[in-house]
């Protein structure tokens, strides 16, 4: 890889790396070769602003991220400890001015992440040559900038980034439809042609009575209608990957189609990191803690290590810290499978004292957490392993927005509510579900999107502007079905004017929302 940074690790760090890598492999962690680069804070801020890829395409939003990181660092408010890239080989960055004990901690943490990248099922489909692909993306977009002009390419990128979350995160695991080729021109087979109307056998003079013409005509009309409808339902089923739909069907210029594809590819690449944030950070923290406290630490470093470890695990205000939640839940699982606190017998035991002292000496904990890191993502992880005891022990609560007060208040400390809120916030990354329903709406080439409403309304101002961005890409008027204050509502944008229609005009059936929160 070509980066402007010096990749030669100094001798002392090289020795540390070999030591920590040895411990990590000794515990059974399995990872790609990991390359550490030692860089200054400013460079680290730059790389972090580019999401870890120094060769990414140019866009002002990375400049914004950079300014925030740099000011945070300059004013002593925040500091990036570690940065690691899912790639083969893995790349990780060490800050030059860190102490030895910090470098060790970061290395141990990084090996945890690398093991997770390689072994977790949700990362299985990601490209392991993303460093190169990102560089390619960067080159292509730079070329468009030169050819077409910075302002135009940037304005288009802004629009693409406005909808880069409208992808189908599960499509990497589920095949929703056959591959469609845009170059398939073979004529469609019309099945209905062969079938004639329902005719009963009859003698010639009785025909008008046994097979009345009006009935035959009605049948014929029905069939025509059905056929038309079939031709009109495009896409065949509603489609969550809005980006793919636009790439395949919107009247884009070649460069625009390419830019949109780049944004979509990168969105899919980053998806598993979002899907496994709690687990991934928990797993890495579990391993830096295990490696450091059992093997890596020199006695003189214990206090500094403890200081920094607790800093990472600290919860700020009421905010959940994914590092903390992840490591605690993993330790909880390890403990439960070591002592046998699972299964029918344990679940049915209602003697509190007995439950507390439960220990069957199974010793399956380590094995279990390795299995968990292989097959789970955050949602299934929380769904399977969050227990009422855990919530009480960690003082978890759910909060809700109170309209009268205009602020968030603590809503409940019951297990069901906490779990429901937590899962809700993780589902689809806490973002609304948007589908393409009809690409030829009203038979006028208009685009109909649908928001699958499940309890929380959209922010209308942003929704309107996002619609305008899609409209630009689609070219024809665009509509979004949603619910506002429990009423079906359609937001529309025709290229110049926004409009909102409320009430019974929507043909969306009122949904029974599973996550309805009241």
């Amino acid at each position, binding site marked *: 890889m070509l980066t402007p940074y010096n990749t030669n690790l100094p001798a002392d760090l090289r020795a540390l790396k070999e030591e920590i890598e040895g411990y990590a492999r000794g515990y059974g962690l399995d990872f790609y070769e990991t390359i550490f680069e030692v860089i200054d804070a400013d460079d680290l801020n730059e790389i972090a602003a580019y999401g870890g890829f120094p060769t990414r395409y140019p866009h002002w939003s990375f400049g914004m991220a950079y300014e925030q990181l740099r000011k945070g660092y300059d004013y002593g408010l925040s500091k990036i400890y570690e940065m690691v890239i899912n790639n083969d080989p893995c790349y990780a960055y060490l800050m030059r001015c860190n102490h030895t004990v910090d470098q060790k901690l970061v290395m141990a943490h990084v090996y945890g992440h690398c093991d997770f990248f390689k072994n977790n099922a949700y990362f299985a489909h990601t490209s392991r040559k993303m460093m190169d692909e990102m560089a390619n993306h960067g080159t292509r977009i730079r070329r468009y900038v030169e050819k077409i002009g910075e302002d135009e390419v940037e*304005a288009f990128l802004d629009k693409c980034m406005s909808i880069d979350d409208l992808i189908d995160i599960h499509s990497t695991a589920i095949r929703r439809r056959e591959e469609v080729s845009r170059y398939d021109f073979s004529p469609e087979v019309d099945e209905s042609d062969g079938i004639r109307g329902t005719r009963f056998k009859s003698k010639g003079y009785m025909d008008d009575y046994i097979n009345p013409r009006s009935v035959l005509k009605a049948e014929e009309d029905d069939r025509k209608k059905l056929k038309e409808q079939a031709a009109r339902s495009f896409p065949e089923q509603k489609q969550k990957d809005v980006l793919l739909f636009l790439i395949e069907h919107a009247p884009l210029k070649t460069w625009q189609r390419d830019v949109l594809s780049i944004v979509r590819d990168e969105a899919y690449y980053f998806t598993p990191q979002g899907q496994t944030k709690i687990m991934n950070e928990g797993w890495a923290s579990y391993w830096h803690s295990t490696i450091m406290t059992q093997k890596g630490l020199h006695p003189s470093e214990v206090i500094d290590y403890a200081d920094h470890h607790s800093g990472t695990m600290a919860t700020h*205000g009421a905010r959940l810290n994914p590092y903390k939640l992840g490591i605690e839940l993993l330790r909880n699982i390890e403990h439960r499978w070591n002592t046998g606190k699972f299964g029918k017998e344990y679940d049915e035991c209602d003697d509190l004292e007995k439950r507390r002292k439960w220990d069957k000496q199974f010793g399956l904990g380590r094995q279990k957490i390795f299995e968990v890191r292989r097959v789970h993502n955050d949602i299934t992880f929380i769904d399977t392993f969050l227990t009422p005891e855990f919530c009480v022990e960690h003082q978890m609560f759910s909060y809700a*927005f109170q309209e009268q007060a205009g602020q968030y208040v*603590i809503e409940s400390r019951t297990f069901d509510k906490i779990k429901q809120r937590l899962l809700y916030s993780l589902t689809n990354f806490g973002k609304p579900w948007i589908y393409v329903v009809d690409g030829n709406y009203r038979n006028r080439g208009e685009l109909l999107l649908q928001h699958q409403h499940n309890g929380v*309304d959209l*922010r209308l101002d942003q929704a309107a502007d996002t619609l305008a961005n899609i409209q630009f890409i689609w070219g024809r008027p665009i509509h979004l079905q949603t619910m506002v204050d429990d009423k079906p509502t359609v937001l529309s944008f025709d290229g110049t004017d926004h409009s909102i229609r409320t009430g019974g005009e929507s043909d969306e059936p009122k949904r029974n929302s599973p996550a309805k929160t009241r």
Partner: protein
Amino acid sequence: MGQRIERDHQRFRKLVRGKVKSNLSKYISRGEMIGKKGKDLVSIPLPQIEIPQFRYGSKNSGGVGQGEGDIGTPLGPGKQGDNSGAGDQPGGHILEVELTLEEMAAILGEELSLPRIEPRGKKNIVSSRDKYTGIRQSGPESLRHFKRTFKRALKRQIASQIYDPERPIVVPIREDKQYRSWKEVHLPQSVAVIIYMMDVSGSMTDEQKEIVRIEAFWIDTWIKAHYKGVETAYIIHDAAAQEVDEHTFYHTRESGGTKISSAYALCDKIISNRYPPDAWNIYAFHFSDGDNWGDDIPHCIELLTEKLLPKLNLFGYGQVESPYGSGEFYEYIHEMLGERNNVVCSRIPDRDAILGSIKEFLGTGR
């Protein structure tokens, strides 16, 4: 820093400053520039542009947190507009940075590339100031460095095996204690006075006074960073001028006509009585909507050129735009720019123009 991020960063700065046309301009959050917190702390929001996306509104939204509190307890303001739940994605709230006024002035200087002020007048007063720079083993308890002391005590207890993880009590003994130590820094000192004048005639609205208040805050911050013991004086005027305190300055509204010369005459009187120019660095700033009683203008110019300007480090005239004022006074001051090097003037039509105007005021390095 790499060239790539430098380019992207410049592009972002241009967008924020509105130098590039963009559909995103309404999503730029500049935030209010002053949010005083505590005694000497201010918070400045970092500019942000939020790309619009389909997002949930706050109604019916919620999440999960961790910590103390009964049901119904409101969460801190940091939670507001942030429904990202367990993730660590930044929410929609504005990022804020808390700073001391000194740091603030440094950032202001850097952002606007302001030259440092070169004080004139006497520099024979030498003041000394303590700067806390080091650590030592002895000192008053009030200067004890808690974290370092705690760490040493903890290390000692672990090493001597008297630390019990079940009862983690750490008691520092004398040898553990660490204290902050200081150095005396000697600085030649010059003193300065800032005299603010404002037109409070009927044509000045509250919004315009707010603009003046923000301007004055930044001018204060910058000048105070360069002088020890800055004094301020406030003059309001309509057809007549009077000296007032700060609160009155910002909260008075008169209905009379406007005679700017009255303020300049009073300003000159204050300087002669209290701030002899050979001992003081004197700054005068005048804010008005540019409406003046016609016959008064020659008198103003005469007062300014004959009496005031020779005594001042800098005279700044800021014209806030008003729906009523004619704004003609600006032209008269503007004409003097070439001849006098200690005059600056600036138009401030709205809040967005404040930063540029501060640069015009303070960019002279005087």
